[in-house]
């Protein structure tokens, strides 16, 4: 492991003076505040735009050109059912993805971390490089695969082209490279003790995994779940290339319906819907802050 280089001999070794610590703090806060200025400005504008008729820079303008022109009409969509339907669909897709990716990554990550088997190294390098295959490029190949899967008797009707099942499988698959690497990293950090004890007691690998290891990587699962949830929530390309019409009509679809080249587009409305789309994600983050930010802490280190 690492060793700490001891400081050269000093007459009176001791912690740094408080004043230096304080200066360090000020510097830290100063730097951070500076760094978030563009973000704060940008989102401030977004908020203002959603409650005004038009804006110039950061200022909402009214008919006379003065400051004003506030309107809540851009937020009327919350009173109609369409957005809530879209939200439910988004939620279903996101939850499904979390479960699917979570399961496959947690079991695969465990094996890659703890077990020896042929093809392990290839698979690891492979999944890292696979990240370079963007979904847009894979589309046509996946179409042929789905079309082929659709011809399989019995289950073909659920996983072929233009099926919800097919779309679900593809979306989970595309997230696996990241999920597997993350979970493997988590398992790598766990100590061997409990596993060994359980195996000595005669437990099967599966039981060891399910009842002992998985609970210990809860922070990792939660973290992966959050990243996957975001992807599922904002998913657009895959669901809509492989279905006819808006079969899987979620929030990004709702947002996209508002944008057109030949019909009037109310960009302030687009901004409002976009903000609305973010709100559940923000709430999610606030509630899981502890879990998310410990993405690399192994369970035995104490969360």
């Amino acid at each position: 492991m690492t060793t700490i280089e001891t400081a050269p001999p000093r007459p009176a070794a001791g912690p740094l003076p408080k004043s230096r610590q304080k200066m360090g703090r000020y510097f830290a806060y100063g730097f951070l505040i500076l760094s978030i200025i563009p973000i704060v400005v940008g989102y401030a504008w977004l908020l203002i735009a959603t409650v005004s008729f038009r804006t110039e820079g950061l200022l909402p303008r009214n008919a006379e050109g003065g400051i004003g022109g506030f309107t809540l009409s851009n937020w009327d969509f919350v009173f109609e059912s369409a957005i809530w339907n879209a939200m439910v669909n988004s939620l279903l897709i996101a939850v499904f993805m979390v479960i699917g990716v979570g399961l496959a990554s947690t079991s695969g990550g465990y094996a890659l971390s703890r077990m020896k088997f042929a093809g392990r190294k290839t698979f690891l390098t492979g999944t890292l490089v696979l990240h370079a295959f963007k979904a847009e490029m894979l589309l046509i190949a996946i179409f042929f695969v789905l079309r082929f899967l659709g011809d399989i008797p019995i289950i073909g009707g659920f996983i072929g082209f233009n099926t919800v099942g097919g779309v679900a499988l593809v979306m989970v698959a595309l997230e696996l490279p990241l999920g597997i690497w993350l979970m493997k990293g988590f398992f790598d950090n766990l100590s061997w003790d409990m596993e060994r004890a359980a195996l000595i007691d005669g437990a099967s690998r599966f039981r060891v995994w399910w009842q002992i290891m998985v609970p210990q990587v809860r922070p990792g699962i939660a973290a992966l779940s959050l990243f996957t949830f975001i992807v599922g929530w904002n998913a657009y390309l895959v669901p809509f290339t492989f279905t006819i019409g808006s079969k899987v009509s979620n929030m990004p679809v709702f947002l996209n319906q508002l944008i057109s080249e030949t019909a009037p587009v109310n960009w302030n409305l687009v901004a409002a819907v976009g903000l609305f789309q973010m709100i559940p994600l923000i709430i999610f983050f606030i509630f899981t802050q502890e879990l998310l930010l410990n993405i690399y802490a192994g369970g035995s280190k104490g969360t």
Partner: protein
Amino acid sequence: MTKQIEEEADALAGAAVGAPGPQRRPLGRRVRSTVSAYGFMAPAVALVLTFFVVAGILLLILSFTDLQSTNFNDAWTFVGFDNYERLFTDAFFPKIARNTVFYVFTTLIFFNLGLALVLALVTTSIPRRAGFFFRLVWLLPRLTPSVVYIMMWQRIASADPFGIYNQIAPEFLGASGGNLYLGGSPWTFVILTNGFIGASFGMIIFTSALESIPKDLLTAAKVDGAGTWRIIRDIKLPMIKWPLLFIATYQTLSLLTSFEYILLLTNGGPGLFTTEVWALTSYSRAFATYAGNNQWAYGATWAIVLVAIALVLAVAYVKLFRFNELIEEPRIENL
């Protein structure tokens, strides 16, 4: 070390059989352990095989055909290396390649890796709640629908009277009144928009890695009088070596294949491919340029070349940073 753990595990798993010591692994136990491993890998392998490996091979085959919308329902015609020739003889190929290298490494070093690390280090050195707040703000771009996010940046960099920067920044800081992301400095804004999204990924990962460093190590160093910089250099950085390398590799690949924000902001312009990058070209040539007559085979060609480059880069990273160690021997505590 891993070998020993695994052998011990195998031994324990097969303990009932009364096997000899870890040195010799009878065939039965080896088979059982492999089967068990494959069982765990099954869902992941099945999905990755079907939708990545098979798809990848299909793409490779497609790149040697001339498949497009106009002949989509006909049998595939093989055209040898025609697509590749077309790709490499594009007049702007060198410029796009240069742009891509510039874009990937600048954004990586300044944002996706650099700023991510700095943010993680700084936000973990202040009280927890405060740190969380700043990290949350930095996460916002990643949560925003891309159309809305770019709309925001366009509004920041627009000309008078719409542009925010022109409205609130003083003139000596570049607020000329004109369009800043088209007439001013397109690259600045391309890198900013992508960087603000990219930084949050590394920031999260590094933060957690930093927060899992045992507190006693840090306290001991402070008691000894080690300054902030020394602690960072000697304790923190070495302990997050693995996430550092992972982020470097992963984000390089991400940047190499990302184009959506550039498409929305400048679409590779202004003028003659000023901010055009490889991934954007591949997307445009294959799909956008042909609205309706999708160039499936040509698009596949670009994808294959890109993946080949990614493979070379990944191997380079592995060799350069001895990443190999981390694939071979997972970090497990000393027993």
